[in-house]
């Protein structure tokens, strides 16, 4: 029997597979396909203080290796989420992490505060969405701001605070360190790479927002490199995200330093992606001679310089 449990700081998950924010809604639609309690956990769509209608369409485009999106944080706002979504979701016997997005520090604090006592497992600070004008990625590319927002949220939170980082930076390790300095319980990464496509016939960007966030298998090598880099830079756990579509991808991300992973785009392509990966994992671990999922975290053996 393979022990599939993983630990992210003080939290224990039955298995390392969490649904990534924005690619699982608030779980309701997915519960039509399978029981949500199969998953390690669910990270909700980003929640903001006020309801947001999001960006005008087109919001989606396919591209080699993945897709672009610029949904623009469409969500019903924290009040509605607390009232209409979380009570249902928390009854599904699966740990819930709420992803929150704000324009400034006070938005994040208010949102964290609103979630106190809600019964969720963790708050994920979305300091990385590339599809809105203010907040999010603008905060997540400045170490000082990351640290300040994290510290302020930690002060009010009654659950672990995860900080979700953007890959669109020069030194990802510095961002991780800033989150750690602010008291983050874990970091999660990557959010999407900022990308663009143009329709050569209309000469218009294919996405109304002009740019969009690039996700899917094509971002995997960048995500893996950053997860590895961050796991070397900080002592807090790292949740690995980006381009994971297979059981092999889960293992690779764990080896790189992830304590758990999130699955995003794969859910859009096949609603059974996560249960299918879960089904494949024990056999793969056995084949690899591993007895416990958690033992894989950071078990990569980098080549030493001058090695042959």
């Amino acid at each position, binding site marked *: 029997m393979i022990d599939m449990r993983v630990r992210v700081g003080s939290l224990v998950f039955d298995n390392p597979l969490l649904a990534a924010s924005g690619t699982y*809604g608030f779980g309701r*639609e997915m519960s*039509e396909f399978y029981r949500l309690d199969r998953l390690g956990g669910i990270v909700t769509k980003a929640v903001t203080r006020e309801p947001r209608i999001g960006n005008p*369409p087109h919001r989606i485009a396919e591209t080699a290796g993945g897709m672009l999106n610029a949904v623009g944080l*469409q969500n019903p706002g924290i009040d509605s989420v607390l009232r209409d979504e979380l009570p249902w979701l928390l009854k599904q016997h699966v740990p819930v992490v709420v992803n929150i997005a704000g324009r400034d520090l006070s938005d994040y604090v208010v949102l964290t505060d609103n979630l106190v006592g809600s019964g969720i497992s963790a708050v994920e600070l979305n300091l990385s969405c590339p599809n809105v004008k203010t907040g999010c990625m603008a905060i997540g590319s400045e170490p000082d701001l990351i640290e300040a927002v994290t510290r302020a949220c930690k002060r009010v939170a009654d659950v672990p605070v995860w900080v979700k980082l953007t890959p669109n930076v020069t030194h990802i390790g510095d961002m991780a360190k800033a989150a750690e300095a602010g008291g983050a319980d874990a970091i999660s990464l990557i959010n999407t790479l900022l990308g663009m496509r143009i329709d050569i016939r209309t000469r218009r960007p294919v996405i109304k927002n002009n740019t969009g966030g690039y996700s899917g298998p094509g971002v995997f090598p960048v995500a893996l490199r950053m997860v590895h880099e961050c796991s070397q830079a900080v002592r807090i756990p790292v949740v690995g995200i980006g381009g994971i579509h297979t059981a092999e991808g889960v293992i690779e991300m764990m080896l790189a330093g992830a304590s758990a992973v999130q699955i995003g785009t794969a859910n859009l*392509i*096949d*609603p059974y992606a996560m249960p299918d990966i879960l089904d494949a994992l024990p056999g793969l671990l056995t084949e690899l001679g591993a007895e416990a999922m958690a033992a894989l975290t950071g078990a990569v053996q980098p080549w030493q310089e001058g090695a042959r």
Partner: protein
Amino acid sequence: MTMNARLKETAHVTGIEWLDSENALLRLNAPEAARLAQPGQFVLLAAGQMLNRPFGVALTDPDAGMVTVGIKKVGIGTGALLDLEQGSAIRLLGPFGHGFSLDNVNRAYVIGGGTGIFPLLFLLHVLRSRGVETFAGCGFRTLQQALLQEDFSDVSDQYLTACESGGGDVSGTAVDALDALYLGHGRTERTRVFACGPIPMLRAVNRWCETHDVAAECSFEARMGCGFGICRGCAVPVLKAGALDYDRCCVEGPVFDRRLIAWEALS
């Protein structure tokens, strides 16, 4: 959707019937979808690309386990689907989406254009089987481009083609066909227009319905990420308490009551 259905199956191509050089009916053996699909709903087909491609269900034969979709070749995914060989297996998800309302209607004006005509065939079949009076009108640029005329005639009390270049039953657009049909048959208390086609057509149908104060349900297309409600990619602009909002084409749609749509926000 229902917890009893997986809403995912391996469909087998039983045949591809070309209607002209661009459009074809793709016949699939997909028993679950055949059993569940309602008019206006769509299925997602894996088309060799990352994202699945949505297609309105054009016909079902639940007993034979058959689903037919009409496909126009517009790009890489539709091209790949229409290159499939008989017997090929492809992943099918669905049926998904909010289809046409079939209750409280006894006279239906069914108006289509472009690839929008395909799902209307299914609708007409079901309306017919429910004893609803069916008047159908489809717009084509030229008569040469007219598709499925016989099939439509078979399931309509009256069927008119409209061609912009003349030669059709009516000269003009699908709305001119609607106008002609309406002139002939008028309305009951439970008359409804059902429309599926390009946005300019839907917009014109809406205007016509406003003028004539007729209820209408319009089926929309949107660029989809998932197709089953989790990504919010497929935004259709709607009015909620007078304010702009975005509903999901794949869950709240693809069929919307025309009065819900924020027509000015549609591009």
